[in-house]
């Protein structure tokens, strides 16, 4: 018989309170992460789960791991996730319609089966003795204890894992690197392109925004000599984002001039 684990000694009341307060929140957050439509929401809910776990680590006498969890996961890794999310597009949201036939029911069935099996396994297991606790192991301090383990017993694994880390960093750089297909266009090339273009309208450069307008702001188009708005005076980025003020209200009214 596989001796899976554990008896399990009871904990003190404060820890129980902490657990029963935070654990349901962690599960709810995890489910939320699973169901959230927007990736950003998922990321934030995951960050919450990780912080909860960090608290549990600390509560279980794993002080160093708890700190590392917060610094590395909720700090670095989650920031990396968010950064990539921004890069790929914050708005990119999943359609929740499943397009692989039978994928969702099969997954849920498998998950219920797996969860049920694991839970019943844990429930069945017994160690036959009470939990030891880490008080003895942490007599010299948790960090010192871990360091002793890392640099003696696990030094080989430690070295290997450092090599893995370096390799991963290099790999990421290689993957992220994109080859330039053309040489970069310089000022001279741009100037030649302007004069060789179909019209000389923009030969002297595009008009600046807000010029001759009543507002001197980047999101307000310039006015042409006839009083109409110059669409090319607004940055295409702002235009694409829709952050452009309707220029009609700034245009001069030709009717008024006729009346005068």
């Amino acid at each position, binding site marked *: *018989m596989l001796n*899976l684990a554990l008896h399990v000694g009871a904990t003190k009341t404060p820890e129980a309170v902490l657990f029963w307060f935070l654990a349901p929140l962690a599960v709810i957050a995890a489910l939320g992460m699973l169901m959230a439509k927007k990736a950003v929401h998922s990321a934030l809910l995951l960050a919450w789960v990780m912080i909860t776990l960090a608290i549990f680590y600390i509560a279980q006498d794993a002080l160093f791991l708890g700190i590392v969890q917060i610094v590395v996961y909720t700090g670095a890794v989650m920031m990396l996730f968010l950064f990539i999310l921004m890069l790929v597009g914050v708005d990119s949201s999943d359609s929740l319609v499943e397009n*692989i036939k039978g*994928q969702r029911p099969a997954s849920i069935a498998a998950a219920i089966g*797996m969860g049920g*099996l694991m839970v019943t*396994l844990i429930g069945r297991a017994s160690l036959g003795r009470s939990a030891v606790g880490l008080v003895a192991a942490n007599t010299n301090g948790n960090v010192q204890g871990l360091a002793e383990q890392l640099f003696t017993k696990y030094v080989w694994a430690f070295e290997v894992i450092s090599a893995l880390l370096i390799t991963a960093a290099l790999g990421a750089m290689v993957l992220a690197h994109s080859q330039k297909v053309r040489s970069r266009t310089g000022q001279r090339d741009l100037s030649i392109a302007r004069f060789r273009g179909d019209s000389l309208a923009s030969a002297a450069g595009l008009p600046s925004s807000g010029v001759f307008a009543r507002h001197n702001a980047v999101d307000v188009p310039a006015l042409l000599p006839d009083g109409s708005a110059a669409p090319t005076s607004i940055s295409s980025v702002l235009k694409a984002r829709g952050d452009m003020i309707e220029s009609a209200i700034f245009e001069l009214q030709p009717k008024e001039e006729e009346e005068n």
Partner: protein
Amino acid sequence: MTTSSNLVYLIALPLVSSALLILLGRKADKWGHLLATLVSATAFGIGVMEFLAMHTRTGAARAATQHLFSWISVGSFNVDASLLLDQLSICFVLLITGVGTLIHIYSIAYMSHDRDRRRFFAYLNLFIAAMLLLVLGDSYLNLYVGWEGVGLASYLLIGFWNQKPTYATAAKKAFVANRVGDVGLSLAIMIAFAQFGTVTFEGVKAGVPHASGAAITAIGAMLLLAAAGKSAQFPLQSWLGDAMAGPTPVSALIHAATMVTAGVYLITRSNYIFDASSTARLLVVIVGGITLIFGALIGTAKDDIKKALAASTMSQIGYMILASGLGPVGYAIAIMHLLTHGFFKAGMFLGAGSVMHGMDDEVNMRRFGGIGKLMPITFATFGLGYLAIIGVPPFAGFYSKDKIIEIAFNAGGTKGWILGGATLLGAAITAFYMTRLVVMTFTGSKRWDEKAHPHESPILMWLPMAVLAIGSVASGFFFNSGNSLVNWLAPVLNSRGVEGGAELMKPIVVSGLALAAVVIGVGIALTKYRSNVPIEAPEDVTIFTKLARKDLLQDSFNEAVLMRPGQKLTAGLVKTDTNVIDGLVRLVGAIFIGSATALRRIQNGYVRSYALIMVLGALALIAMIWVVTL
């Protein structure tokens, strides 16, 4: 035993010449026929020299051997390519090379207008080589090589004018019918090897007394099957008539004088086997008896001169087979009839060829008539052959056929009466159809077209006919005087010195009966065909004539009993193959394709599906732990 180093040249010379003529192609067109004839004549010369040398030796030393090389050497099974020239072989050697040379000479003129004359002579030489190997081999396996070789040469020569589909079909028919017989020979060789561990004539002969009777009978029956195939005996007789598609010299040499008599050679050569099994002898006699009547009946109704002669050949070989089935007294008589028949039948075939040559290749006797006056030499030589075949004394056929009738009567009891009656009846029918042939062709009123201009053939053609005619006249007397041939062959064919059975009738009585039968046959034919021969064959004839015209239904029988069921069987096998065998194979394929197609759905390319499968695998693992830890 004497060793001789000349025997190999008998085979090698024509073989090399044949290869040369074929390989050199049109370059040899000018002199190919001369080379072939010269080679054939040289072989005849060697044969004569060997015969003279053999004549000076006595007793067991007469037989000569030549070891060529060790052919097969597998464990205890050894076959040497060795040649054996004994008293029996020398008869055949002289017949083959002698008649062969005459026919070569004849063919020079006969085929002079054919642009493929060189190829024809190459095949003729090939035939000579193969036939000599057949009679000179010292084991059944060597004989078998020659046996197949003559079959090939026969096939090539029957189908020589293969631009005519019917001729090509005739060649194929002959080949296939011969194959049936060849299977018999190969089976006989296999049984002999299984029984005796050797296939040489000598070894088999030595082993016969120790072998089981059933095995001997089986070998005898298989040898008889082989002989029936090669010699056109019942029930494999149907190919000979169609074999007349070949050029007439071929019909004379191969399908009258030599190759078709190979079956007789095989049986007489295997005399020790037939001596040891009365059942096998009885089978031989039955086959011979049936065929001699069968062939004679077909001969009575044929209007095609060559086919009538072919039927006659079949019938005459039936005589020989019957004689060789009568035991030690019969073998030598069979050989005697074989030799005399070789002369007169070859002569008559050449005569028929001469007539055809003068009549623009017309073969229908109803369109001949009165040719005798225009072709006197042909008529004379043919007439001598005719007198020989019907058995008029003192021509050759009289001596040999009378002997056969005599020993048939002497076979004893009911068997003797039946066989004697059959041979006597055969003699009468022979006289009838041969008279009919001669009368329709050479006498009476002319019935040919205005376009035909019958004329005497050139000397190259009539000279061989004349030589053969001399043979037809004199050979019988020569062989019979003082039993010379019987005594000559006795060491080989009758080593135990068996005497014939009690005489049922005095020989003179038998001769009288035979002559009476001949006279009756000739008389009927004369009254029927001397005049008023219609140009078209009359339709209002008796059922018997119709049957005889259809070769006594031999082809219909073969077609209905062998070909159609064979075709049906083949079609059925093909169906079985496509449906059952291929069906099984396809089923296996379909199972794999089906299961693969079903499994392929898993491979939908979506990484999430693969992840799900991984999760399911993990689930299975956990479930296993769950169960194990219960």
